[in-house]
């Protein structure tokens, strides 16, 4: 078995009893249109090959900085956005999942006739963007979303009764007095009551509005809830109420949660499994206690080191240099190498890193006439005068660039006004197994590739 099959075997979030959600190689690219004809000039790779499993009744925490693609992933999983590659499989049992992983492990062109038909059958009944008719309707009932901003997600012109009762009405579950009673029941489950039925969203506090959102999500008795930063707009004391409520509901109804958040203390409290995302890819995934106690990816460590915790002493906490790279042109190799504190020569140094350094050199960047890429690792930089070209080659060989970057360079030649820079080509860093159910994508401490 190669990549995906073994991945499923070792993936933290896999159980042989099947999963509520099995995400396989999910991609969501947004086209960048440019020019008078609006031709596609490139893609923003918001989600770029993400795989994980979410077993029934568990909570998976999805963490990362803003712009890492976690909200996009939530939207694709809930069917609000179409994936551009890979698939989200909903409610797959054990045997189906092993068949699925076996088939996906084989490259498309090598698949046998039987494997193809197997995959087709599975995709028809489980892959959410291929569901049709009753199956699609069933999925929409079973998967509900609670959004971050309850101001924006509740219609200000509708009464609470209409907001919470709308799903019941659409699905033909109840109407009239029956509907009202059901809504009251739901409101009571989230700690509100009959007196709130005929009010508008603006009459409630933030915590109460989030409760209304949760009541609406629960109306059709779903199995999976996508919680997209449900508490980030709330104060801590109210956040505690909502987190307790969510936990209570999960116990009562055996709900499965996909919990998207940037707050590490919240995921630590709520999640069984954690997936850390960085620029559209999974950096590290594993059981909550492993991720918090023994993180292996430097990005996870940076996140943990940067977030303040009440129980820590007053030690220094460290942030990260630089900013999140542009997802339209994600860095080669490991996507974190541009900011990584423990970067090595094999992390994927490329010509763009040189260009990035140029911008910090006063006067040098303005002298660049053009960059001719032969590959991301090999390019000619043309300058407007020979002096600038010599300055660049001097810069690259100086102490001012990281030692790892200097080591990764195979060739720097100056020819009048042109500098040729070539790095050793590096493949993308794959997820490797670090322990039971624990994977990370980092060149450090790699045991064996999966």
């Amino acid at each position, binding site marked *: 078995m190669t990549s995906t099959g073994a991945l499923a075997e070792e993936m933290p979030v896999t159980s042989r009893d099947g999963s509520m959600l099995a995400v396989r190689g999910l991609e969501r690219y947004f086209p960048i249109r440019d020019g008078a004809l609006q031709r596609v000039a490139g893609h923003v790779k918001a989600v770029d090959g993400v795989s994980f499993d979410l077993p029934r009744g568990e909570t998976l925490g999805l963490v990362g*900085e*803003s712009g890492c693609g976690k909200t996009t992933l939530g939207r694709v999983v809930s069917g609000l956005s179409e994936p551009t590659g890979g698939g989200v499989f909903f409610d797959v049992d054990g045997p189906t999942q092993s068949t699925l992983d076996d088939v996906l492990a084989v490259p498309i062109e090598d698949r046998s006739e039987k494997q193809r038909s197997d995959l087709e059958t599975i995709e028809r009944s489980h892959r959410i963007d291929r569901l049709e008719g009753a199956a699609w309707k069933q999925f929409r009932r079973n998967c509900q979303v609670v959004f971050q901003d309850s101001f924006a997600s509740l219609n200000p012109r509708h009464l609470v009764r209409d907001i919470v009762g709308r799903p019941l009405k659409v699905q033909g579950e109840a109407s009239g007095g029956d509907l009202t009673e059901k809504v009251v029941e739901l409101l009571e489950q989230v700690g509100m009551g009959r007196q709130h039925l005929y009010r508008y969203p603006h009459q409630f*506090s*933030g*915590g*109460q509005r989030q409760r209304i959102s949760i009541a609406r999500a629960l109306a059709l008795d779903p199995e999976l809830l996508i919680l997209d930063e449900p508490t980030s707009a709330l*104060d*801590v*004391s*109210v*956040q*505690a*109420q909502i*987190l*307790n409520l969510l*936990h*209570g509901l999960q*116990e009562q109804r055996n709900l499965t949660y996909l919990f998207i958040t*940037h707050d*590490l*203390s*919240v995921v*630590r*409290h*709520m999640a069984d499994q954690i997936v850390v995302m960085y620029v559209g890819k999974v950096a590290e995934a594993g059981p909550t206690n492993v991720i*918090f106690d023994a993180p292996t990816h430097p990005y996870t460590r*940076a*996140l943990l*080191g*940067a*977030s*303040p*915790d*009440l*129980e*820590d002493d*007053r030690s*220094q*906490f*460290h*942030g*990260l*240099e630089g*900013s*999140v790279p542009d997802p339209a042109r994600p860095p080669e190799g490991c996507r974190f190498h541009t900011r990584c504190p423990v970067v090595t020569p094999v992390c994927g140094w490329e010509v763009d890193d040189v260009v990035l350094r140029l*911008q*910090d*050199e*006063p006067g040098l*960047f303005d002298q660049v006439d053009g960059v001719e890429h032969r590959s991301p690792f090999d390019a000619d930089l043309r300058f407007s005068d020979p002096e600038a070209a010599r300055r660049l080659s001097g810069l690259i060989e100086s102490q001012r660039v990281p030692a790892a970057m200097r080591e990764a360079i195979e060739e720097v030649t100056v020819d009048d006004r042109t500098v040729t820079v070539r790095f050793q080509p590096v493949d993308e860093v794959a997820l490797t197994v670090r322990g039971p159910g624990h994977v990370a994508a980092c060149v450090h401490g790699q045991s064996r590739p999966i």
Partner: protein
Amino acid sequence: MPISDTAPTIAEVRNLKVYFNTKAGIVQAVDGVDFSIKDGETLGLVGETGCGKSVTARSFLRLVPMPPGIQVDGSILFHPRRICDSCAGAGCAICDQTGRVAAKCPACSGTGCITCSNSGIEQVDLLTVPEKRLRQIRGDRIAMIFQDPGKALNPSLSIRQQVGEVFLQHRTTEVLVRAGLDPDEASSLLERRASLQSRSVEKVLLSIPPFRSNRNRIDKAVDQMTLAALAETQIPNPLKVMDRYPHELSGGMKQRVMIAQALACNPDLLIADEPTTALDVTVQARIIELIRELQERTKTAVLYISHDLSLVKRVCDRVAVMYAGRIAEVGSSDELFSDPQHPYTRGLLAAIPSASHERGRLVAIEGTVPELVDPDPGCRFAGRCPHEADVCSTIDPDLKPTEEDHAVACFIHHPPDAAAASLPSFERVIR
């Protein structure tokens, strides 16, 4: 409030009351707040949404719009400082390496009089001082960093103009000196240019030869000062950033520009109103480090406003917890977090999820923040408090010290007068 340290008090808030006129009635947003900030310390002001922490901070610079705001009562006494004579701001033993000493009272020039209550130190009540004097203090002696740098920076001005403006407003003499002009002899035309008061006719005049070269020298001097201020905040390639507009910068970068702007004149007090709420954790950590580093160097006092208790614990020397317009508890950071005494502080700390909490067992504070329109006379926390007694709904507890540098507004620690309350219920509570 007990002050153990020998550091002089830089600002003192006394019985501050700011109300707002709304359709529903008068909202008592800040209702009797007292605290003081010592020179060089970081005071954290924490509390939930709507507890009045931002209004308190904005009152320092009179940034609360009036109306609808009403300044009901109170004073904010500020002791501005000036550059130390013996070291000219470089830092010496006399000024405790800060480069600043207390400004003398202008009425008695330091001998002691009624205006300065015999201390000889200049004392300004920020709430009543004339607008002209306040403008001198704003951005110079007291600076502010706002929550959302995207909104606080002017989108139509380049960074160069925005940061340079601070120097033109507050450092006119220095700008003229750096430009090689004698401040005493420079023509009023240039002086007005250097203090950003040129009229449109003057701007035209300044762009023609006899004045142009001097104007350019002033601009160059300002640019140099701007560059130094930006470099101070570790902005990579400040020369390039200067010509950018706010929308071209990332959130962390914008916040750095704001910090550069705020610290440009080496203020005595920096008010940071949730400076990192809009940023990612990794960027937040960098910004906090930066503020702390700059503070250590310049010995500026910081009033740090935040709703994030774990962050405040790391950043602040002393912490004041606000609830519904009043201070519930104030004390040194170590003590307040290790031994919280007010039930609200305890509730807040228990509500933060951490590894030691079992899932679903977070201790939430029941109920919601009270309406501040015509509130009950009692303790504002009554109704949500687990230790509530009869007296709590009728009398409001005062903020009284329990130990050195730790004060609490709660009857658990200061039982009310026997005449005023039914004591028996309290004994029950304490037991």
